[in-house]
């Protein structure tokens, strides 16, 4: 077990980082906000943590906190500016945020290290810290799926206008989903930087959008559990699929397309349906 852990520690770390990244877009999706701003926030967190560690010598949790704070402020401003957009337009605008960020860090001069990125952001952040943070985030999000906040968020997703008429503070919930997505994304980015001690512009690029969407589409976007399933699958799948070699990208593409078309609720949705069927056998005659 210990030998297995030591051999796979990098994958284990990246699984929890991926989980936080996936949650950063699952949270707004759950509120019906098609925002990918969590990806740009990942870049903000990654670079902020590197900069304050290198230049100011801040301890790891202060560096992570600084990244999260900055990302949350930007996410809140984005929420104010983008409030009128919806659906795909919002998705495009928030992808643009992440693309602009990659360009900005390449042209950031000494502060961001240009195309080479930043090196030597050494800290004593450990795998256990990452796991603890991820577990804490999951517990808080799981709580937010119950009771009043859970139903409020469901209502905002299903029918925002009706939700307003029922007395749900829809605008506040949407803004909060932006900010929480920003916090989670920045936390993932900052911890990744501090674990690897480096950050480069490619690492915060467009591929993260693909990775995060892939995890959510295959895992399921309705609950934190979907993000967890997605993070587990897409951390370990590459090790299983090593034999397909250069076809791996194609296999991924097919998996995502099949999931999006045939299982829109993801693996999580399939599992929930299965459990429901076990509990309640089909009635004779059935219902239309």
């Amino acid at each position, binding site marked *: 077990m210990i030998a297995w852990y030591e051999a796979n520690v990098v994958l284990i770390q990246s699984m929890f980082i991926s989980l936080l990244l996936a949650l950063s877009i699952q949270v707004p999706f759950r509120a019906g906000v098609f925002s990918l701003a969590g990806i740009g926030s990942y870049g903000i967190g990654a670079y902020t943590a590197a900069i304050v560690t290198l230049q100011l010598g801040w301890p790891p949790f202060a560096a992570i906190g600084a990244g999260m704070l900055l990302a949350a402020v930007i996410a809140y401003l984005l929420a104010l500016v983008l409030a009128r957009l919806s659906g795909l337009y919002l998705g495009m605008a928030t992808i643009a945020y992440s693309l602009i960020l990659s360009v900005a860090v390449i042209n950031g001069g000494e502060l961001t290290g240009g195309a080479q990125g930043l090196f030597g952001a050494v800290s004593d952040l450990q795998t256990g810290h990452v796991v603890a943070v991820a577990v804490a985030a999951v517990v808080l999000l799981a709580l937010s799926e119950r009771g*009043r906040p859970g*139903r*409020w968020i*469901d*209502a905002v997703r*299903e*029918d925002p*206008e*009706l939700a*307003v*008429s*029922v*007395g*749900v*503070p*829809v*605008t506040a919930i949407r803004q909060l989903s932006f900010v929480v997505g920003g916090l989670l994304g920045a936390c993932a980015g900052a911890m990744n930087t501090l674990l690897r001690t480096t950050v480069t512009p490619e690492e915060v690029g467009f591929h993260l959008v693909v990775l995060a969407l892939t995890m959510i589409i295959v895992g399921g976007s309705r609950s934190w559990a979907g993000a967890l399933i997605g993070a587990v699958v897409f951390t370990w799948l590459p090790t299983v699929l090593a034999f397909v070699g250069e076809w791996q990208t194609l296999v991924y593409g097919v998996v995502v397309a099949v999931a999006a078309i045939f299982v829109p609720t993801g693996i999580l949705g399939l599992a929930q349906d299965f459990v429901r069927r076990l509990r309640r056998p089909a009635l004779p005659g059935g*219902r239309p």
Partner: protein
Amino acid sequence: MLEIEDLRVSYGSVEAVRGVSARASEGRVTLVLGANGAGKSTTLRAVAGLVPVRSGEVRLGGAPIVGRAPHRIVRDGLVLVPEGRRVFAPLTVEENLVLGGYTAPRAQAQQTMEHVYAMFPVLRERRRGAAGLLSGGEQQMLAFGRALMSSPRVMLLDEPSMGLAPAMVESVLGAVREMADSGIALLVVEQNAELGLEIADDVVVLARGEAVFHGSAAEARSHASVVRAFLGDAALTG
């Protein structure tokens, strides 16, 4: 309870509501009649805070509510039931009701739910089922029940009978009367003028964004222009 004074609402440069005044009083049903595009729905939506008001006053129990956030207006005691019997389809019937009751104190919401179930027994039977699986009439009752959960002083109903089977229309309008009799002030937009007049106490007629008639239901019945526009010529001679 609710006073609307010289309300004006514009969409861009188009004035949809041009100086509407109306009121709704405790225990009374005020029927809002008017052709398509007369500004009925816009008036209700503006009062509920869903579309911005250009000018005019809306007072709820004497306090002005124009410009307040819509979810605060619900807390103040005014709730809109939008047209098209909208419910949160994937949520259960009971979850829909619980959602409606978050603006009221918990103990009161519990009590109101019993009251709603007593008023609409079918909702109790189906309380664990998805709201989307209810029939059209049942969904409208759920929409009423959800609105009642906030313990409103004023309810705005937008076309509650639209698209329902004739038998269902009567029981839905019967429920509207029952809600008014429990002391709530109701402002009801209704296409079916004939049935609407049977349960109404007061009538407002809108045309091209303006109020062109105010009066009691009895006056409306005998007012030639109301009759011609909404009840058909047969009612004049018969």
